[in-house]
């Protein structure tokens, strides 16, 4: 049997460690300055170089090269011994199999002996998250104050399982997932020196498949190379079941045209060509995610090839953001569906049938509206006032637009208004108010109240210009109830209530509401208790209200 490529290509020098500059730089400087710590903890996803860097550090600590900055030299006898795996003072422990407290006690007994050959005795404890609680605790004292000749390097993929007492005793270095570019570069180098014929695109695909792990990427390359043929996109698709994205595009096309039959045909075309159903689902989700990103105005993040991008832009235009979200949810469910199942395609078919109908959800629409109103309130708050009735008419027109197009250019919309001049006037609608709403027969609906609650901030802003202390008081009041043209304000404390219910002040608030929402309302203030709100129809200073204030409960009301 031959040695696996990923073991053969373990980095032997600092420069060969790819994609982890933030770690290697620190460690190199520590070695160069002779300031190597006594305990390190390396964490990060699988295949990012934790064990490799741990060995490098071990090598550098004991290297015999004269200038510390050049260590490890890979020439002195110790370096060579480490490379061969025969260095006596490098002790690598697999914590997954030696996870008991007795193993740690054994380590503690031996650590006091001075190193056999080198300057330091180095303990690399791999998969350290598997140690039992007792084992961790038994290690604590040694980890805090090891003998001067000992260095600990702990490595783990699951940092969340490490006790805080261990974390605080180590220098922590986090390894990042490698980027696709970094992995591709590495693969190219390996392919060149191993004389493995490979297409560039194929290597990129391998890198993408590896999801940030060098080891996965290199073993995949190894596997592809073992077929003996040139590595091409086609070969990889065959072995990994990753389809060409053409099928995904066609699938989305038929969703757009609402043609389930055609969509199912495309689905099965892809599956018959050898795509794994889960992989296909993931690809669809990835593409839909790209659509969403384009929709939200960030096509650079979408990471699509140029020829696909054009099509994607077209698709993004054809769907609403809500529809895309719905599709992502459906197909994502198919991608994460773990059931093996008698028919692997079923979850995809269900997802496809599911995206043909857009569920009658009110929620996302409201969400969109609030996000768009938020986009407009931001400039308002900056300019203190804005023509308020304008914001009222806007949401409807905005809901059809994408929220981001708004969010990205609030400064321009703001620039057209001159905030200062308006700040002096009392807020005045730009559009003529339709008609004064009739006082006699006010018809409130729930939506009136929600509108009011939503625009409450704006109303407060309008109040603020006229009467600052009142606005402060209103901060501890909120609309509670809207009934028969009377708005009940729930106040947190008596002070706020007294201030808000002063005649002049009530007028100010009424006017603000009129200007903002075109609603003419009477205002009534009550104290609302955190535990139990005082109902509006109870006398505010009576016995019942008092009882409620101290925590009483209304269980029954009798006339």
């Amino acid at each position, binding site marked *: *049997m*031959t040695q696996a490529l990923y073991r053969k290509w373990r980095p032997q020098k600092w420069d060969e460690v790819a994609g982890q500059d933030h770690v290697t730089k620190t460690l190199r400087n520590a070695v160069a300055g002779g300031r190597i710590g006594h305990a390190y903890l390396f964490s990060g996803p*699988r*295949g990012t170089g934790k064990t490799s860097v741990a060995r490098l550090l071990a090598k550098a600590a004991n290297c015999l090269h004269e200038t510390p900055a050049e260590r490890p030299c890979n020439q002195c006898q110790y370096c060579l011994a480490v490379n061969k795996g025969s260095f006596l003072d490098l002790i690598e422990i*697999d914590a*997954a*199999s030696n996870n008991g407290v007795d193993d740690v006690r054994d380590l503690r007994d031996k650590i006091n002996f001075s190193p056999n050959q080198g300057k330091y005795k180095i303990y690399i404890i791999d998969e350290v998250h598997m140690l039992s609680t007792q084992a961790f605790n038994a290690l604590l004292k040694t980890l805090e104050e090891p003998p001067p000749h000992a260095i600990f390097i702990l490595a783990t993929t699951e940092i969340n399982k490490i006790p805080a007492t261990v974390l605080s005793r180590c220098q922590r270095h986090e390894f990042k997932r490698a980027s696709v570019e970094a992995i591709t570069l590495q693969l190219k180098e390996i392919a060149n020196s191993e004389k493995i014929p490979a297409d560039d695109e194929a290597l990129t695909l391998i890198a993408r498949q590896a999801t940030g*792990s060098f*080891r*996965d990427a290199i*073993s995949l390359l190894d*596997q592809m190379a*073992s*077929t*003996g043929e040139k590595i091409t996109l086609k070969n990889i698709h*065959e*072995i*990994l*079941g990753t389809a060409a994205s053409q099928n995904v595009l066609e699938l989305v096309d038929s969703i757009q045209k609402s043609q*389930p*039959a*055609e969509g*199912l*045909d495309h689905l*099965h075309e892809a599956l*018959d060509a*050898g795509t*794994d159903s*889960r992989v296909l689902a993931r690809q669809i989700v990835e593409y839909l995610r790209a659509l969403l990103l384009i929709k939200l105005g960030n096509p650079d993040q979408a990471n699509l090839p140029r020829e696909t991008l054009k099509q994607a832009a077209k698709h993004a235009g054809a769907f609403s953001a809500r529809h895309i979200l719905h599709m992502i949810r459906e197909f994502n469910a198919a991608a994460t569906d*773990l*059931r*093996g*199942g*008698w*028919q*692997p395609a*079923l*979850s995809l*078919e*269900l997802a496809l*049938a*599911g995206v*043909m*109908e857009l569920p009658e959800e009110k929620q996302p629409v409201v969400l969109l509206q609030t996000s768009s109103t938020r986009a407009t309130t931001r400039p308002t708050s900056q300019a203190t006032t804005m023509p308020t009735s304008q914001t009222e008419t806007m949401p409807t027109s905005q809901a059809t637009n994408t929220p981001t197009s708004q969010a990205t250019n609030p400064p321009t919309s703001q620039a057209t208004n001159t905030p200062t001049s308006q700040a002096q006037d009392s807020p005045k609608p730009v559009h003529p108010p339709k008609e004064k709403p009739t006082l006699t027969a006010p018809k409130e609906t729930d939506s009136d109240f929600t509108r009011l609650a939503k625009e409450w901030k704006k109303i407060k802003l309008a109040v603020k210009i006229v009467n600052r202390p009142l606005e402060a008081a209103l901060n501890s009041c909120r609309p509670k109830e809207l009934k028969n043209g009377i708005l009940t304000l729930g106040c947190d404390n008596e002070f706020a209530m007294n201030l808000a219910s002063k005649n002049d002040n009530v007028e100010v608030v009424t006017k603000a509401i009129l200007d903002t929402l075109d609603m003419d309302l009477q205002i009534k203030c009550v104290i609302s208790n955190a535990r139990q709100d005082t109902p509006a129809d109870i006398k505010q200073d009576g016995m019942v209200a008092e009882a409620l204030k101290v925590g009483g409960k209304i269980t029954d009301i009798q006339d």
Partner: protein
Amino acid sequence: MIEENWGLLGHDWAVNMLRRHIQEDAVRHAYLFTGPPGVGRRSLALRFAQALNCPQPPAPGEACRACRTCTQIEAMQYPDLSILQAEHEGGTLKVEQIRAIQHGLSLKPYQGRYRVAIFLRFQEANPNAANALLKTLEEAPAHVVLVVMADNPDQLLPTIVSRCEGLRLRSLPVERVQTFIQSRGTDPDSARLLAHLSGGRPGYALRLKDDPHGLELRTRWLDELHGILSSNRIRRFAYAEKLTRDKEETRQVLELWGSYWRDVMLFSSGSSIDLTNIDRMQEIESLGKMIDLSRARRLVMDIENGIDRLDKNVNARLLLEVLLLDWPFVGSERK
């Protein structure tokens, strides 16, 4: 053609790859075969074991499939072949079993060149068992080849998957399974039905072929499905009570019904994809015309969720009652 392919139907690329590994003496120490049940994972693994151990191969990377070694392996009675699985389908593979096999693997092969260990349905291994295998999977002794099998890699620990060389076996085209079954002496019509029922899994189709009782049950259950559609609530409740007395049977019925409703869904979408229950085309067509896509989808979903919940041990009778209530009424409702 099948003969050149280690006597296997389909999976040519996998056979070629394994053969090349043997020829180039680059056999990996751990493989992971994934694919739907009945697709041929175990057969491939056994042929691989034969090719590895056959004392007089006709060509490098081939097995004679006639010598004592080969026949023993085929019968799974070869001393250097260990097969490990949960005690029954749906059971759990325990850590003791792994430990026992680890000891055996550390010994030199008794007869052949390699000790081969095959782990069937490894998704059934409990976490301790899976973890216990990790070290062996990573650094197996030189004379050991491990073959792990699962329905799909996502069911296993990622650490297991990344230590193996993965081969993903796919369902075959239905036509190929049909000709294969036909060549085994079945008349074309039933061969066609078996191939469709198997969804392109030759092993499953063969099993069905030799199981007339299973086919009978299937017919009965599908007839009952139609009976339910035309009966009122009281009868449906009565049926639910009757059926759910046996949980395993309930599960099988639900799976069958799921495939049936899927056919209805596919038909009502207007797609031309091969249906599963082709002997019931007429019924499916008339149902598919009655029900629109979203309704059919909901019915399939309900059954899928139902199976899921059944595994989580909900009250089967309640589950089935709710399920049947949502089914459409077809035909004249009899009181």
